């Protein structure tokens, strides 16, 4: 167990800069989620930490040791691959034991740890099987087990759930979380799924195009996004961003952002921004309704209680409390403050 530090880490592949001046501190025992759209450099950052990719500039520390020039095997980190990468010719037992044998641990110790890990993950019955005789979910657990059994300083997970179906993903998500809390091992978890990020992360680091956009708790990112990218990336359906003038708030050259769930039907008191919009489509979700509204040329989404039911084609007045409206600078995309 150890804290992890990225200090101004940059990775260049020929022309592309995959990771640009990344600085992150991960506390001991923390689960940090690295999230961002495809190609933003999440995997590259993780692989540099694992030692599978050279670091172009900057330093990475595990504990207080600079690991830039330490071989992957000596970094004491365990990685769960998206593909699982279970050794196909070895039984589950041998898959789990491989890393321990390389450490030259005594036989009984290896056996004890493998059985303990198998018990934690419910793999006892499967120890003699080969990976191809396992279901997708079981393979996933073996991949986790291979990381746990080594009792490393940190777990690195690269989209470990992306090969599972939706139901299993939700269940495994909770299991990983429980396991991580129980073991208290520092974990960096990569995903492109913001819901996964929100539900799992102690803190979340949002990346875009190799650059860290913001790092904070799920709540901080949700309520105080640093810029338009984070504001629209976190949350589903995503935040509406419109020219501030449309709502009659802010100054020139500013954008106003508000979340669909903060939209109210009808004009509120003086502390709200109100606007008229045409209801285009209504998605009925049972407990609430998603209304797609047209505001001039701009489409915004509102998440409203089912009552009263909205009708498509009608012109309606909507409002958003001013303290829920976030203002962004149009040229830099950075957050300026709230409209309140």
């Amino acid at each position, binding site marked *: 167990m150890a804290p992890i530090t990225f200090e101004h880490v940059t990775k260049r592949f020929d022309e592309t800069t995959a990771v640009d001046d990344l600085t992150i501190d991960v506390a001991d025992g923390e689960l940090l989620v690295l999230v961002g759209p495809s190609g933003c450099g999440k995997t590259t950052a993780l692989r540099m930490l694992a030692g599978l990719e050279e670091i172009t500039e900057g330093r990475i520390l595990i504990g207080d040791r600079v690991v830039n020039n330490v071989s992957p095997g000596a970094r004491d980190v365990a990685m769960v*691959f*998206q593909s*699982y990468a279970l050794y*196909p*010719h070895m039984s589950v037992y041998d898959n789990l034991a491989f890393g321990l044998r*390389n*450490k030259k641990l005594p036989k009984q110790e290896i056996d004890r740890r493998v059985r303990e890990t198998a018990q934690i993950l419910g793999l006892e019955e499967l120890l003699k099987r080969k*990976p*191809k005789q396992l279901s997708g979910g079981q393979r996933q657990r073996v991949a986790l087990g*291979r990381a746990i059994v080594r009792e490393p300083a940190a777990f690195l997970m690269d989209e470990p759930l992306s090969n599972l179906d939706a139901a299993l993903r939700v269940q495994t998500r909770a299991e990983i979380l429980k396991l991580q809390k129980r073991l208290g091992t520092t974990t960096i978890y990569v995903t492109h799924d913001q819901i996964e990020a929100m539900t799992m992360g102690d803190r979340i680091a949002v990346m875009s195009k190799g650059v860290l956009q913001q790092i904070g708790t799920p709540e901080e990112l949700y309520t105080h996004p640093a810029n338009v990218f984070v504001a629209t990336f976190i949350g589903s359906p995503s935040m509406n961003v419109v020219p501030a003038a449309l709502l009659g708030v802010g100054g020139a050259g500013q954008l106003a952002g508000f979340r669909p769930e903060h939209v109210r039907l009808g004009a509120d008191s003086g502390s709200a921004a109100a606007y008229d919009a045409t209801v285009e489509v209504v998605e009925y979700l049972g407990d609430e309704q998603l209304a797609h509204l047209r505001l001039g040329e701009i489409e915004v989404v509102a998440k409203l209680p089912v009552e009263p039911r909205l009708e498509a084609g009608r012109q309606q007045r909507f409002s958003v409390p001013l303290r829920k409206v976030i203002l962004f600078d149009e040229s830099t995309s950075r957050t300026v403050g709230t409209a309140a």
Partner: protein
Amino acid sequence: MLQTTAVAEPLVPPRAPVEILRRAFLYAVLVAVAAVFFVPFLWTVSTSFKTIPDSVHVNLIPHPWTTQAWHEVWTRFNFGLYFRNSFFLAAVVTGANIVLAGLGGYAFARLRFPGRELLFLLVLGTLMVPDQLRLIPVFVMLTNWHLINGFSGYILINLVTATNLFFMRQYFLTIPKDFEEAAKLDGAGYFKTFSRVMLPLALPAVSALAILQFQGTWNDFFWPLIIFGQGNQDLYTVQLGLASLQFQYTTLWPQLMAGSVIAVLPIVVVFVLFQRYFISGVVSAGVKG
């Protein structure tokens, strides 16, 4: 109440008659083709049990039966020794090729070192040079090193072939990198990663290489003849032994055929032993997605 049908339908409907006919036809063709390939072999076996006068006739059943050819091949013509010589050479050359082409192919596929591409081009380049062209230089070289008239010269020039190197490299390139990276993180060094992870994953390729190389060396006539085939008969391989059964004016057909059956057997054994590893798909299971 659930509704039940009066007449119980069979659980699995039988094959349609057309399908049965199609299959019958398919099997008939397969049997015919198999027979075409098998008859010459049968002929070989049959002739080996014939007498010399009978051997020029086209009857498939020997008349009279005799095991004399077999007996002679083993005693007078010393095929037991030739067999051991051939086996020794084939085993050593195959073993060396598995180890060296495995290591070399892995290096060419995965390790980064300066001059790798150039070196690999050189290896490929040797594939363009026909054996006949190499004959004299190799012979002169081995003579200068006093490696002629013995097995060591033959083994030396066959330690690893460019074809095998190329073959293993190509196979290693198809194995996903994740396995190696997982092994690295599991604390395995280069050699352990190779021997415990990559080589086992390359088992289908290794088996193919083993079969083909064993067969190639076993059947090799040209280079054994050049390097150690002219003097000491104790160095003869099975192939050289077979050739020695053909004289200028006569050929001892039954003996030649008995020798041929002996020559074929190890190949059959090797193939049966290794063929199940030919079936790949071992690799695909570990990586999902």
